């Protein structure tokens, strides 16, 4: 990644679905190492915007550049390579239920041909970091909501991505667990990762204030408002 260049950049982006415009004239720049919150009421388009940020959706107007490359010029394989640099955590995180937690976390290594690293000590350290060492051999359906979110975070960062996108990561877990997850995300940011969290939980944003400088972006009426307002 070129130092100083934006890792994700949206320029006058619009997105329509089923005849209705969900997002309109969105411009956003995520610099390396920055920390952002994306807020807004349910249905405002936070998840849609997150999906646009990792190439899961293509804009109906405007330009999106991921690591400097316009997504319209990327084929499916290029998008796959981009996703190895973007860790994604969803509220309704999905796993391969027939594989163990360890296998699910190391899945990005498997699909990118780095199987050997699944045997390294780094995986053990990562499992320890997210507090899942004793759940390594469990199957995903056996995990609690918090454990699932931490497993998803571990999977999202195992490739040491440049960006971590978390969509309502604390939506299904209790306050204590959400604080623990937030601390992990802040730690990642301090390691130089760009973090974008979509949430409608203002307490989460306030709790972050003491640890890191974060920008808060609010989506309302299909547009980003209050963009650039510091917490």
């Amino acid at each position: 990644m070129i130092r100083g260049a934006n890792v994700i950049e949206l320029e006058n982006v619009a997105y329509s679905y089923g005849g209705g415009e969900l997002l309109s004239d969105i411009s956003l720049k995520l610099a390396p190492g920055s920390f952002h919150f994306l807020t807004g009421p349910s249905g405002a388009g936070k998840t849609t915007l997150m999906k646009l940020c990792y190439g899961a959706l293509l804009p109906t107007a405007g330009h999106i550049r991921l690591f400097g490359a316009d997504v319209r010029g990327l084929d499916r394989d290029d998008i796959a390579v981009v996703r190895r640099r973007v860790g994604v955590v969803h509220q309704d995180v999905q796993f391969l239920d027939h594989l163990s937690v360890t296998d699910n976390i190391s899945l990005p290594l498997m699909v990118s041909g780095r199987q050997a690293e699944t045997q390294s000590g780094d995986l053990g350290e990562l499992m320890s970091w997210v507090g899942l060492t004793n759940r390594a051999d469990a199957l995903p359906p056996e995990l609690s909501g918090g454990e699932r979110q931490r497993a998803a975070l571990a999977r999202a960062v195992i490739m040491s991505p440049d960006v971590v996108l978390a969509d309502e990561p604390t939506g299904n877990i209790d306050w204590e667990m959400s604080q623990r997850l937030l601390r992990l995300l802040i730690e990642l940011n301090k390691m130089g990762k760009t973090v974008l969290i979509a949430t409608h939980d203002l307490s989460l944003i306030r709790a972050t204030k003491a640890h890191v400088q974060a920008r808060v972006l609010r989506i309302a009426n299909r547009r980003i408002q209050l963009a650039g307002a510091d917490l």
Partner: protein
Amino acid sequence: MFNTANLSALVAGDRQADRVVPPTGFTAQLTLFAAAAMAFLAVFALALSLAAGRLADRWGDALARSATIRIVAPLDQRGAQTDAALSILQTTKGVQSARALSDAEQQALLAPWFGPDLALDTLPVPRLIEVIETAEGMDPAGLRLRLAAEVPGAVLDDHSRWREPLVQAASRLRLLGWMSIVLIAAAVAAMITLAANAALAANAQVIAVLRLVGARDDYIARAFIRRFTLRAFWGAVTGTVLGLLAVLLLPSASDAGGFLTGLGFQGIHWLWPILIPFLAGAVAFAATGAAARRTLKELA
């Protein structure tokens, strides 16, 4: 996207890539059974085709080089006309040998209809002359003209009247056998495509997760292609072995046997069925690859 360059990777396998797709018992069993059944039928279609080919060759080759002359004349002239016909045949180009059938031989020919005690002298049975041609063959039209002029009671039958339909029938039967193999391969392709589509649709969530973590289409496709190719291959191996056992249990061919007892493999033809599992694997490889490409594009 997946192409033949990935064939070696497919054969070598990737244990971890194989594991990302959950095992699907129903489609696995369906694919194995259908591949085995189709391979079993393919063995018989192949046996039919090869046997029909041998029959066509035999009829076409052996009968094409022989002819028969009937001497239809009063008893007192039959000997002289037979000698005259043999004399003409000795000087006819393309005739390797000619001989009049003996009374015993003619009696044996008629025995199925008149019994073994037939007195040939009492019946106006024509004398038969067997003519064997050289590899170059004779000119039947020219011989007919000479016989008409010098042996009025001689009728030349060069077997073409009944040989050609037989050879044609055998050739059609051979073609039918090959067409059956092509249809079996098409049916395998259709069945594998349906099973692969079902497996891909059932694993849409798995595909979504794999894409989320950065899997390329060829990685995802390979997991499905390898699975279906190996299932079709091993199913076909089972079907082929069973088919060969069934062919072995058929009555063996003999000189007295008809076409049905000759249905089977001879000599190097026993090696042909070995190709069936590889054909099934290749068909599954192509069908699953096409299904995977289409589904992954739709799911993108």
